[in-house]
């Protein structure tokens, strides 16, 4: 098998640098990045906002979910350059009336919607995205809309309860703090 394998690259293409200007949690940012940099790495490594997590390399787990112009997306599946000129909201950018938490965050606390907390920021952002377009989702709608987010700890029922709690307690649009 190794004999006829394609030759490995002997040297990688030199990095092409690009400028990316975006708004992250209400603050304008500008970075010169290797063009192949993923948005999730812009957020985690360059903005040092480490609440957005990475759980897979096939766009399946949703741990990296953030809002791009208000819509929940997987930041591991988007190049940082694609966020040029756009607004990004991460879990650190959420703020609301529950001791600083939004109804979604507070719902997760009230209903034990998290255990290890690793999937949690992604779940919270996905749920925030859902409630922005459907303020009163049914259990089935919640489950369907979280289809792209994997939690290995909770078995999901308490996450569903958490999102219902948020719907019942006002699906506040995320305020972004600067």
């Amino acid at each position: 098998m190794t004999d006829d394998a394609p030759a490995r690259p002997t040297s990688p293409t030199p990095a092409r640098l690009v400028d990316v200007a975006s708004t992250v949690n209400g603050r304008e940012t500008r970075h010169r990045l290797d063009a192949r940099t993923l948005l999730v790495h812009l957020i985690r490594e360059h903005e040092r906002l480490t609440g957005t997590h990475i759980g897979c390399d096939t766009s399946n787990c949703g741990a990296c979910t953030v809002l791009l112009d208000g819509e929940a997306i997987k930041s591991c599946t988007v190049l940082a350059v694609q966020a040029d000129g756009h607004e990004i909201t991460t879990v650190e950018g959420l703020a609301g009336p529950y001791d600083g938490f939004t109804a979604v965050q507070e719902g997760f606390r009230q209903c034990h919607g998290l255990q290890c907390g690793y999937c949690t920021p992604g779940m919270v952002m996905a749920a925030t995205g859902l409630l922005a377009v459907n303020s009163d989702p049914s259990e089935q709608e919640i489950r369907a809309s979280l289809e792209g987010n994997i939690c290995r700890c909770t078995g999901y029922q308490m996450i569903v309860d958490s999102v219902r709690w948020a719907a019942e307690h006002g699906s506040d649009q995320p305020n972004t703090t600067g």
Partner: protein
Amino acid sequence: MSLVGAKVLRKEDPRLLSGTGTFVDDLSPPRCAFAAFVTSTEAHAEIVSIDARAALKIPGVLGVWTAADFADHPDLPGGLPDLERPALARNIVRFAGEPVAVVVADDRYLAADAVAAVDVQYRDLPVVTTIEAATADDAPVLFANHGSNVVTVVPTMDDLERQISRCDDRASLHLVNQRCAAVPIEAVACLADWGADGLTLWATFQAPHHLRNYLATWLDIPQTQCRVVAPDVGGGFGSKIVWYPEFFLAPLLSKWTRRPVKFAQTRTEAMMQMAHGRDQVHDLDIGFDRDGTIRALRVVISQNLGAYPDPTGVGLAVLTSWMAAGCYRIPDVSTSFRTVVTNTTPVAAYRGAGRPEAAYSIERMIDLVARRTGLDPAEVRRRNFIKPGAFPYETHNEPVVYDSGDFPAALDECLRLVRYDERRAEQAARADDPDAPLLGIGLSSWLEIAGFGPNGSLEGFGHLASWESAQVRIQPDGSAIVFAGSSPHGQGHETTFAQIASDELGIPFDRIQLRFGDTATVLQGVGTMGSRGVPTAGSAVKVASSRVLEKAKKVAAHLLEAAEADLEVRDNAFNVRGSPGKKVGWGEVAWASFQPLSLPPELQAGSLEERLFQESPNFSYPSGAYACVVEIDRATGAIDIVDMVLVDDCGTVINPLLAEGQVHGGVAQGIAQALFEAVVYEPDSGQPITANLLDYLVPSAPDMPGYTAGRITTLCPNNPLGAKGIGESGAVGAPAAVVNAIVDALAPFGVEHVDMPVTPEKVWRLLHDATAPERSHR
């Protein structure tokens, strides 16, 4: 009011919900470099050459290292003679994904470039991935010096053939308990920083002291120079208590590059490198009488260990043997096992570790007895249960003495919650309606062994000891720090242990802070696994706290000039009974406890501190009864779980919210094993074909049902809390309930068994292979 038993919201949530938790990959010290591994593309091969020249030319690449560079260090700890695992493959690779070389670069993108540029040439060797292939006469041998792929054989003294054949009837099953992956959503990561003051390793690990103990020895440095920290850890389920090479190599890479070195596994790497679980094959024979009484059981277990025997992996079949008879009074039980190496990822603990396999088999066999006798499965269970008055109950294995339980009560509660009779009536009513989905009802009366704490119980798996530690320290303002030897990865120790301490000390919950996961602050610890957190560490917190309170009472009595016996702690103060208003606050007592002039002569400053290594006289045995109701689409074989009822007995519940969360999570993993998940290898090449989350089906929310939880309580007599543990329960109990329900639904078609994962395709084939529905047995 007692906090133990109350639904207290978690202390850990605010940081985790605000994105300010600290997971290993979140750490990024100045000048941090990044390590990445060149991993084997072959499942079994000789390494002919490794050419790193191209990689080393990439700007920003600091170096490439292979096994030869680590020749001064031993193989990974815990290996069996002639079967040790080198930290990097030496000459031979034995599974696809095995690390072959390591690169360090300025960042993770460059490290990935460098990995791609390293050219490894292999000469393929023949591959075995299954027990059957590995034990065939002409099987290629993984370890030439060992001479065989069979690692351990524990035969039975008596195969019980005589006893089984004397029964009215007998039944047998060949069951495959398929290989699963734990898939914590945070994969393995570590950060090593070896500076002038020694090494600090931050690692995704369930037992930081355990890692420290072995890492220091491996590196040949004193433990004082070797600090291991498990910060926030994103799930473990057993897979984070394995000696991964990364933890051992990263420190040396940091030392050699004089930079902090971080490694964070990709999911694809994790699917091939993190230990897998299960992968047992069982041959079961059971002898029973016409009235459903079971007289003899024979269990023959084969365990696939993967490429290198893991210390826990080798022990899994022991636990399966121990729990083989479940919650039944079976006069004769025979168990035997063998463990076998194959060209696959090593197998170790995965939630339940050996007990889900036992529970699944005995619960499948009980249903088979029901089928053959024509009795209701609930009735067969009832007729064979160990009676509530029979505890402590000695089993077929001397170390295993069941502590307590009430199996009939759990089953009754489960049948009530699932509306069993109604469901059976509905099933019968549907039987002749070809348009209605098939209905199946499955039961699982499960039992497991947990609370790993008796002396000797963990030493066999390589641990320092089996106790768990707690240290309770009162601060001068009357707040308390609790250091726990068991460090969590989602279980909520900060909350439950603070509840326990608050009850004992009379100090408000909000004034108690937990510390764990750092060998520099917690003197010694064992770890979080085997559902031992609350029974062992929780008990340690309870006893240490109560001892601190005893001493605090002496201080308070001295300050109040009252008798200790007259004091009661209420509202964060020591009150003199019968003298309203005569009291001193916890804060004042704490302050005085540091002032020699304020203390009674028998106490010294700083005495309000207690460190304890809590031993346990025996294990704990969580149990329960689960029911699953499924509907099966006759046209497509699609399976829909319409009800999942979970009645648990975990003894004392510290926090019902968290206890239920543990059950849900475990049940979800159990359902996933029953319906979706399997690690699959291409048998001839050993290539993994489920090495990412596209191909390995971890369920998400729409795939999972809601759960109805119930509870009964029998206390564990073996620890001061009376707690049995609950972390693994769901994963132990759920698979049998689901598969029993499916087989029940398919009973009219003559189906007696179907192996997990039960996919719609398998069901569809069973439905189509059956010529016509047979007459129902009920």
